[in-house]
Each structure stands twice: as structure tokens, then as C-alpha cells.
């Protein structure tokens, strides 16, 4: 099997470290990150015909 070049291996290690850092965030910050992911993904999914709703975290609705 081919071995990774050191600079690529370093990139993968950095990605891994970032994931662990994200996993350690407080829950409310993670929820806000999920909403940002929703905002990014929603236009793509809607263009494919999927009905999705980005969460409203802050305002009381009913």
C-alpha cells in the first residue's frame, strides 16, 4: 500500500484534531454549528426537491 506524503498526513492529522476540538465544544455551541450546517445544506437539498426547514433557535414562535 502507498504511504502518505508527510505533508498530506499532516493535513489529515489537522482535520482529525479539528474534529476532536469540535466534539469538545459546549452543547449550545454545537447546536448553533448544526444550524449553520443546515443553512449551507438547505439550498442544495431544496434544489433537489427536498423540503427542509432551518431551525429557528432564538425566537418564541407560538
Amino acid at each position, binding site marked *: 500500500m502507498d504511504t502518505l506524503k508527510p505533508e498530506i498526513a499532516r493535513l489529515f492529522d489537522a482535520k482529525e484534531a479539528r474534529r476532536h476540538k469540535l*466534539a469538545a465544544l459546549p*452543547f*449550545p455551541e454545537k447546536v448553533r454549528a*448544526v444550524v449553520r450546517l443546515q443553512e449551507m445544506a438547505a439550498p442544495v437539498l431544496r434544489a433537489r426537491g427536498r423540503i427542509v*426547514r432551518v*431551525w*429557528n*433557535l432564538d425566537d418564541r414562535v*407560538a
Partner: protein
Amino acid sequence: MKYTLQVLNELERDGVLDRYAIGGAMGATFYVEPLLTFDLDVFVVLSQTGGGLLSLAPLYEALRTRGYAEEGECVLIEGVPVQFLPAYNALLEEALREARDTSYEETPTRVVRAEHLIAICLQTGRDKDRERVRIFREQAELDLSYLADVLQRHGLEGKWKQWTP
């Protein structure tokens, strides 16, 4: 989301449901990196109806009277689509019983333990569940002895070995 959780707490306090806990991708997000989801999966132990049947109908009715409408498989509660999943087997009942108490922006809530979320993934068995188990193993702090007990109790050791070579 805190208003959503406040509504769930009210439903529990009013006896519409006996107990709830956050599961699914948002439950997983409690332990690992943020995972994309558009639904808040909530496992519930429903209050027993007269005939002994477990039905989501009284829960949906209670939500309608509070002004929250159904949207496909979910109910839109304070801007968040919530999918209610009744505890339909022994694993889910245990997961709900042993869910951990926490709080979200000072609102008390409950999240299914990571070890139970893994067991539920193994039991459900889809590709995305397998991927989630991989993420849990990589990022979550797991109590491996507790996990081993859960897997043994619910006959999931074989699947665990198959998925974690």
C-alpha cells in the same frame, strides 16, 4: 431550541408523556462533532392509555392545542421540527430510563447516553448508523464496560464485532 425543550418539559410535567430524551443525530452531537440534521429526534415513554395501547395521538393532540402543527413526520415546536419516537422495545426503554440529565441554556433536558445511541445504531443497522458508530468510537468518551453490558443485554455483540473489526 430552549423553547422547544421547555415545551417538552411542560408535556412531561402535565403527564402527556412519562419521560423523554433527545436521541438521533442531535443526541449524537452532544458527544461528538456537530452532525447535520433537520429533525430533533425525541424518544418518549408515553403515558398509558385506558386500553393499554401506546399511541402518539394524545401527544399530537396536546401539541395542537398548544398551537404546534404537524409537518410531515414531525411537529414544529418553537421553530424546530421534532420527531417523536415511542420506546418500542427493551433497548429504547432502557435508553430512556438511563438517559443523562443535562441542561441547554439553563433549560433542563435529557440526552440518551452515548453507549445506548451506539446500541440503537447497531440495532437499526443502516449505512448512516454504521458511520455514526465509527464517529462515536473516534470522538466520544465511552464507558466501554457499560457499553459491553448494554450490547450483551440486547444481543448486539455480534453486530458490534462485525462493524468494528
